[in-house]
């Protein structure tokens, strides 16, 4: 009996070694022939992910498809419909604080009361005077608002009824990189190009390794890119051609590979780009996550990122010669009476956008952007260039009797202690209550569940807290931006402010660089 068992084991071992040697030989042969084994599975063993893969939609390129298993969508009430109306907005504002990386007191080039055209320079940062920050609309500059320590917080423009655009002399696409770059800086679109690491305005001196554009947004209540791209296909393709002049690397598009979400035709037909497909829950649509899976940032490399809205501005600038920031804005959230999509320009006044749309029975929080990484709207604030949505939710400054034990109202949570898994498609009415107090890190493995990257967020946060720059870098801080850890911050049991910790770390890194 024992001998029989031994013989069987030996035979199995021999068979296994034969298989494994032949497998290795195949790999070696593939390397000799210069085939990239990381993209194609040349092994005789199928990968587990291949065996159990769900079918992908037919338009998806399977070799560039990434299925992200980590992450969670948060469904909230107040999702806008599909109709788009033109917003009636009379005032527009440009906020220097929107542009991360410039000094708090930029040099303003126009005086209060003067008339400007859409595309006229308003101010510049003294550290780089070539990069102009321009007016999104034509009209009268009615106010230069100042914030703390005489910093400039808003430049407010009363818009003309009939918009007038400054006519730019557009260089041809065959001109040199320098010419195109300096034109982008002078025409006011440069500040839309962000660079990673640090998620700040790109440095024109640098040539980026690659340029990444995420073409879908998975954040709560985000608007679909099909609305943004409708009737703008020429602008989109033109912008891609321009970007290809700026980098020696590639322009990557991160496309929506989720079942039943076919991307817009413009994206499917785009040329001069490498398309990658992502399926998964939030934050699959974050450009940082996509970079990590396409071509991660390593060493001193910098990459650039843009949003689709900004691409359309660049495209129109090169096609028609005007700075036109016309875009679709989502007005969303549980406190909006009728959530809706509106068409307006960058910098629209929040109070104009919300006129008659806000439910004012209870106190609301107006958020520029989404509930995870947006910012709280100040008094008489403006939707800057960064955001394409406003979210209004209830303020949550109430006490709740035994709220930690028996929540009376449903609330979004990733914890299994809530019966939320029974209501998969429920859209939650949320408020801003913290549902608990700040504590030290206790739970582990929580952040990893909602960050589809090979990064240890909790250890990174601890490294930032003690200010260990080398460790921060080694743990991958350069690949992250606030929006990437926002979901982890949401789910944090200890209510840690991860986004602001990360920003502190990024600022530390920037000072060092």
């Amino acid at each position, binding site marked *: 009996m024992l001998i029989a068992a031994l013989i069987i084991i030996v035979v199995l071992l021999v068979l296994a070694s034969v298989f494994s040697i032949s497998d290795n030989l195949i790999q070696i042969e593939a390397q000799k022939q210069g085939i990239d084994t990381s993209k194609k599975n040349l092994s005789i063993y199928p990968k587990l992910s291949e065996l159990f893969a769900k079918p992908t939609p037919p338009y998806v390129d399977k070799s560039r498809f990434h299925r992200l298993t980590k992450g969670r969508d948060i469904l909230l009430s107040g999702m806008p419909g599909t109709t788009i109306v033109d917003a009636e907005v009379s005032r527009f504002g440009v906020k220097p604080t929107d542009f991360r990386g410039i000094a708090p007191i930029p040099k303003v080039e126009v005086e209060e009361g003067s008339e400007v055209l859409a595309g006229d320079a308003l101010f510049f940062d003294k550290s780089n005077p070539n990069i102009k920050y321009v007016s999104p609309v034509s009209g009268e500059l009615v106010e230069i608002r100042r914030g703390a320590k005489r910093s400039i917080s808003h430049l407010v423009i009363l818009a003309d009824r009939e918009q007038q655009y400054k006519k730019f002399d557009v260089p041809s696409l065959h001109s040199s990189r320098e010419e195109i770059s300096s034109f982008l800086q002078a025409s006011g679109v440069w500040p839309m190009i962000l660079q990673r690491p640090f998620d700040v305005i790109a440095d024109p001196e640098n040539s980026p390794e690659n340029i990444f554009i995420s073409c879908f947004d998975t954040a709560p209540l985000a608007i679909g890119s099909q609305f943004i791209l409708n009737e703008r296909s020429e602008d989109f393709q033109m912008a891609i051609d321009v970007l290809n002049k700026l980098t020696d690397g590639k322009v990557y598009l991160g496309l929506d590979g989720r079942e039943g979400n076919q991307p817009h035709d413009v994206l499917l037909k785009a040329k001069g780009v490498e398309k990658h497909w992502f399926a998964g829950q939030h934050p699959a649509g974050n450009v940082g996550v996509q970079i990590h899976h396409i071509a991660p940032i390593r060493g001193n490399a910098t990459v650039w990122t843009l949003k689709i809205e900004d691409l359309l501005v660049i495209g129109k600038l090169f096609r028609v010669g005007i700075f036109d920031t016309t875009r679709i804005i989502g007005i969303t959230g549980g406190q909006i009476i009728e959530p809706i999509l509106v068409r307006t320009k960058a910098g629209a006044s929040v109070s104009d956008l919300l006129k008659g749309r806000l439910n004012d029975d209870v106190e609301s929080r107006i958020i520029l952007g989404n509930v995870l990484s947006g910012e709280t709207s100040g008094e008489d604030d403006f939707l800057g260039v960064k955001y394409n949505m406003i979210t209004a939710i209830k303020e949550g*400054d109430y006490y709740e009797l035994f709220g930690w034990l028996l929540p009376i109202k449903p609330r979004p949570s990733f914890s299994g202690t809530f019966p939320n898994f029974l209501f998969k498609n429920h859209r939650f009415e949320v408020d*801003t209550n913290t549902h608990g107090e700040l504590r030290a890190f206790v739970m*582990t493995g929580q952040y990893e569940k909602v960050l589809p990257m090979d990064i240890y967020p909790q250890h990174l946060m601890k490294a930032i807290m003690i200010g260990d720059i080398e460790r921060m870098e080694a743990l991958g801080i350069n690949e992250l931006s606030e929006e990437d850890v926002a979901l982890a911050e949401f789910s944090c049991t200890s209510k840690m402010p991860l986004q602001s910790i990360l920003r502190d770390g990024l600022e530390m890194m920037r000072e060092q660089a």
Partner: protein
Amino acid sequence: MGLVDLFKKIEPDKKNSPFLHTAYDAFFTFAFTPNTTTKGGVHIRDGMDLKRTMVFVVIALQLCYLFGTYNIGHQHFDAVGMYPGFLEGFHLKLGHGLIKMLPIFIWTHVVGLGIEFWFAAKKGHAVEEGFLVSGALIPLIMPPDIPIWILCVSVVFAVILGKEAFGGTGMNIWNVALLARVFVFFAYPTSISGDGAWVAGFTEIAPGAAVDYGWAHNVFNSLFGWMNLDTFNSTAVIADGYSGATPLALAYQGGWEAVTEQFTVAHMWWGTIPGSIGETSKPLILIGAAMLLLTGIASWRIMLSMVLGAAFMGYIFNAWDATAFMSVPWYYHFYMGSFFFAMAFMATDPVTAASTNTGKWIYGFMIGALGLLIRVFNPAYPEGWMLAILFLNTMAPLIDHFVLESNMKKRLSHA
């Protein structure tokens, strides 16, 4: 919200009486989740917080509490040879269990929470929830006959040196509950050594020894007498041939046969055996473990790898087969001792366990393997999980260090 206003009215002044204010704040935030709203960062927060996390662990322990209390009484009457059926003499067994259990529970919390409140007042922060779980665990892992003063000293040691010295909840290196127990077992080996400690209510554990009843039993007696029920019989003595030994002690002496002479597998599975208060009943512990797993509070990686580690080690011992204990079939090891309790509630403590997912696999596997090694090889101490977990608590940062290091290398090698 009339109730909130009422509570707010009695709020003590923070400056004049910091301790009172801290205590007030602890009870107020216990009754009401605070009205704080998000500032900067995310605008909405998950409904989960640390209180809820901790309380779910405490809820998961409740079945162990119920059974443990009753089993104290059951073991007591088993020793004197009365009421052999599990449910016979129900009121007496429950009464005796409560007499033993309540002081342990109350003193643990009075001492532990007192220290927590005092430190919170001194340091000027809110009372953290860590002791909710530690305080629920400590009574369950103590022998039922532990003198109260030893219990109190061990809680003081565990909370002050084990936790507050490191900065409070979330900062400790070792599992607080296990520190309390390890303190008892190494500081007072004479009063709690051998087999004697596992059955409560006697002057000593030897055949013919008399029961040791106090005023509380008399109170119960007058109550039971008035209700026309059986009363505690203070003339009862321990039956002949009774040793009070736990299955592990027997297994060390004579292997699986010696164990099965006294206990059946069903006894050990259902937990009607002597042992620490809360760790005997396997199904009830597994219900708690399932609850922690389903809610995602405890790490399934640690639990699974710990089972694998113990099975692996048990299998090796079976193959080696040098002593009687080694030859106990590996799957029977799960019936004896407190493996499941250690797995579900001790090893999974997120603060002291490894914090990376890969690290958790290693951490759990090592506890499983090492714990069984101690159990089988150490004649002085019959159960290994406590020492194995504390040892791996110490090693967890090292495990994480190597996991992180490999992640960092991956990134830097491309630089």
